[in-house]
């Protein structure tokens, strides 16, 4: 069953002022898909994803996770085990004495048995590339920034969510760190069949990995489609303050020079394949 978002509106009230951030959003997040959410700063991406596990509740409308309504307080623990949420700077949530304990915090809250917790912790740490021998008994505060990020991510993976939500998971990581996290996500999706919902500002990553892209603008859904068709709206995207992935821009420049590059190039692989074909011809 999917996550169904039905006419979701959200308004922040602070004091006398009210700030309508999400305006009538309806969409469905399918099982097993990689959905990317893009949009300019402040358009409501974080607000939207925090509705997926009931951290924020709709001002009006509904969010159903596998048929469970997030507004129902009794269903929330179940929803939070279904939907794992990784925040923008997840390393700030580390608190336990050792990395092992911190990663085990989620499973422990799920009231799993000690053996199952231990199993999941070592599995999750292996997945993010932190070896148990080296890092298991270390204090999370002794890790480097990138290692903290991995440890925090492992803390979510250990809960084995069916939907993994990541809010700009790669902000502030080096290119290699980004690639290894993305590769890890791809592998995770293949192995477990979970859905991945990722907010990101990196158009290249989004074009390369997402099955579908959700483009938001001022709290509304502008597009929800495959990368190829979303990035064919180059002018509209530019109007929303979004850029195209670099390979798209290269193809557009080629077209401007009179080369007949096809319009559906949006990843580096597409571009490479096209250029090779051209050079051979």
């Amino acid at each position, binding site marked *: 069953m999917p996550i169904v978002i039905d006419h979701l509106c959200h308004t922040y009230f602070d004091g006398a002022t009210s700030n309508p951030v999400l305006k009538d959003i309806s969409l469905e997040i399918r099982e097993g898909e990689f959905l990317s959410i893009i949009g300019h700063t402040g358009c409501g991406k974080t607000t939207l994803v925090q509705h997926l596990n009931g*951290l924020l509740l709709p001002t009006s409308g509904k969010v159903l996770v596998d048929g469970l309504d997030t507004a129902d307080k009794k269903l929330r*623990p179940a929803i*939070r085990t279904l939907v794992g*949420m990784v925040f923008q700077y997840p390393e*700030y*949530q580390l*608190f*336990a004495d050792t990395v092992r304990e911190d990663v085990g915090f989620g499973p422990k809250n799920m009231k799993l048995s000690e053996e199952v917790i231990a199993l999941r912790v070592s599995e999750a740490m292996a997945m993010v590339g932190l070896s148990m021998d080296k890092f298991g008994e270390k204090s999370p505060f002794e890790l480097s920034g990138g290692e903290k990020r991995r440890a925090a991510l492992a803390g979510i993976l250990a809960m084995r969510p069916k939907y993994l939500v990541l809010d700009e998971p790669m902000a502030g990581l080096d290119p290699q760190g980004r690639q290894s996290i993305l590769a890890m996500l791809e592998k995770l999706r293949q192995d477990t069949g979970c859905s991945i919902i990722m907010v990101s500002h990196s158009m290249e990553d989004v074009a390369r990995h997402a099955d579908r892209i959700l483009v938001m603008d001022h709290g509304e859904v502008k597009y929800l489609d495959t990368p190829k068709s979303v990035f064919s709206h180059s002018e509209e995207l530019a109007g929303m303050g979004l850029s195209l992935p670099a390979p798209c821009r290269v193809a557009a420049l080629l077209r401007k020079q009179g080369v007949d590059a096809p319009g559906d190039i949006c990843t580096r692989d597409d571009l490479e394949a096209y250029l090779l074909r051209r050079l051979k011809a």
Partner: protein
Amino acid sequence: MTDITLGQFIPGNSCIHRLDPRTKIVLMLVYIVMVFLVKSLILFSVPLAYVLLCLWLGQISFSYFGKAIKPIRFLLVFMFLLNLFITPGEKTLFSWRFIKITEEGLLQAVFISLRLILLVTGASIMTLTTSPIALTDGLERMLSPLKVFKFPAHELAMMMTIALRFIPTLMEEADKIRKAQMARGADFESGNIIARAKAMIPILIPLFVSAFRRADELAMAMESRCYHGGEGRTKLHQLKLGRGDLAAVLVTMAFLALILLVQGFFPGLI
């Protein structure tokens, strides 16, 4: 959390807002003395009138009176009941088994409650109309004579300014961490007091860690811009006492004098 009025500041340009912060601090102290001097029910109307006058002059909505009291409502009820039941007295109004309410007790309870209400609302008026920066500036100036005795007035004021500046930041951060831990299934709402206190650990530790990190970074940023304490430092906004301050002092003195006169010379009136 946003309901807390004490310590909140409403920007504005009323005559109260424009008073020198030092005047406001001193007058608040005078006002507190005034509230404690009042010894009769009728005379409580004097500080009450004073508060209402300040609210009106400061262009603050009268609803703030209620908002200021709201956070202390339990304390109020508690103090009222405590004084009502334990004050010894002669004239018994009501008694049932071991419960005994005397006239003195009732009067005492009403007095205490009125005093608390007046103190909290009066103090809120000062913070509502004085920006935290102005407040610490005023404090620094008032404490600066003590520098002769090596009292760190400037450092203290700077510490207060920074602390006030970071309260909203820390609140925001606490909210973020709370959400992140809730996403991992942490439960802050059920269980007994001990379980709840324990549940706070996953919030408090990251919060402290990040507060220390911030403090470190801020100290570094200040030092790299050559901050070295208060010596020889000049101010962007110089504090100056004006005619408004004189007027405020005179008005306040008039209120104080009224209470003293009535209580001292015409006790029969009350």
